[in-house]
């Protein structure tokens, strides 16, 4: 199990090789990529930033939870920071297991949790020269006074929260 924030291109093949061996009948890969449009506005790129120490801590907690829930310890999560262009991979999650179901579940769990609770932010850069902070729908994202938008790389979780409940860390 390994998680990392990186400032360079994500090497997906290397990640697959890292978590797989001959005992694994399945390796599942999720890639989040920079999309060329969001909420109808043409996008040229995204600047990713993070609260690094906490983000790594939350990513580690998610990987630990995936191991507990699904018995998948062969898991790697890399999230890239900095300025990314269209099509660039912003996040990669690879899970490997003797059987496909745990690998698929662990991968899905990891990306949904990452999008909800890991303190990473994106500043979308638009073709018209404007820029805007956008947000996923997750804890604390209900009352965003500033910067609200849709998830950029992927439609938000279709998984009910009850399946993967997490503590609500919102300030009350």
């Amino acid at each position, binding site marked *: 199990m390994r998680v990392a924030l990186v400032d360079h291109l994500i090497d997906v093949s290397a990640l697959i090789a890292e978590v797989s061996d001959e005992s694994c009948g399945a390796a599942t890969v999720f890639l*989040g990529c920079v999309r060329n449009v969001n909420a109808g506005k043409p996008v040229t790129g995204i600047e*990713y*930033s*993070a*609260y690094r*120490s*906490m*983000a790594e*801590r939350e990513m580690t907690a998610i990987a630990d939870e995936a191991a507990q829930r699904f018995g998948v310890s062969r898991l790697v999560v890399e*999230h890239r920071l900095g300025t990314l262009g269209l099509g660039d991979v*912003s*996040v990669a999650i690879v899970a490997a297991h003797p059987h496909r179901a745990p690998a698929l579940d662990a991968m899905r769990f990891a*990306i949904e949790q*990452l*999008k*909800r*609770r*890991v*303190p*990473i*932010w*994106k*500043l979308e850069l638009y073709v018209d020269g404007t820029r805007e*902070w*956008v*947000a*996923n729908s*997750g*804890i*604390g*994202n209900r*009352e*965003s*006074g*500033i*910067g*609200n938008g849709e*998830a*950029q*790389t*992927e439609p938000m979780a279709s998984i009910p929260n009850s399946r993967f409940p997490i*503590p609500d*860390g*919102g*300030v*009350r």
Partner: protein
Amino acid sequence: MRAAPGFFVCVHARRAGYILSETMTVTVLLFASYADALGKSAIELDVAPGSTVRDILGTLFAMPGGDRLPPRPLVAVNQEYASASTALQGGEEVAVIPPVAGG
């Protein structure tokens, strides 16, 4: 004088003269849209002993640009999500977390 981490002696000028009082300091971190709102990404705050996260937020709301923060932002204390009633001992890293957008 107690030598707890994060505590220091601060001298306050009062009309009657100078008195010694104990305050504590916390480091407030701001990110993304919240850093833009307040025009800075880190603030050292001197606060009274027994202060909570809610008190810190109140101080931030009163700062220039603080009105651009939402009324109940997410907060993490020492890299863990915390509640408004979380008490501070001094020396903590208090991060105000904008809506997250990883992925």
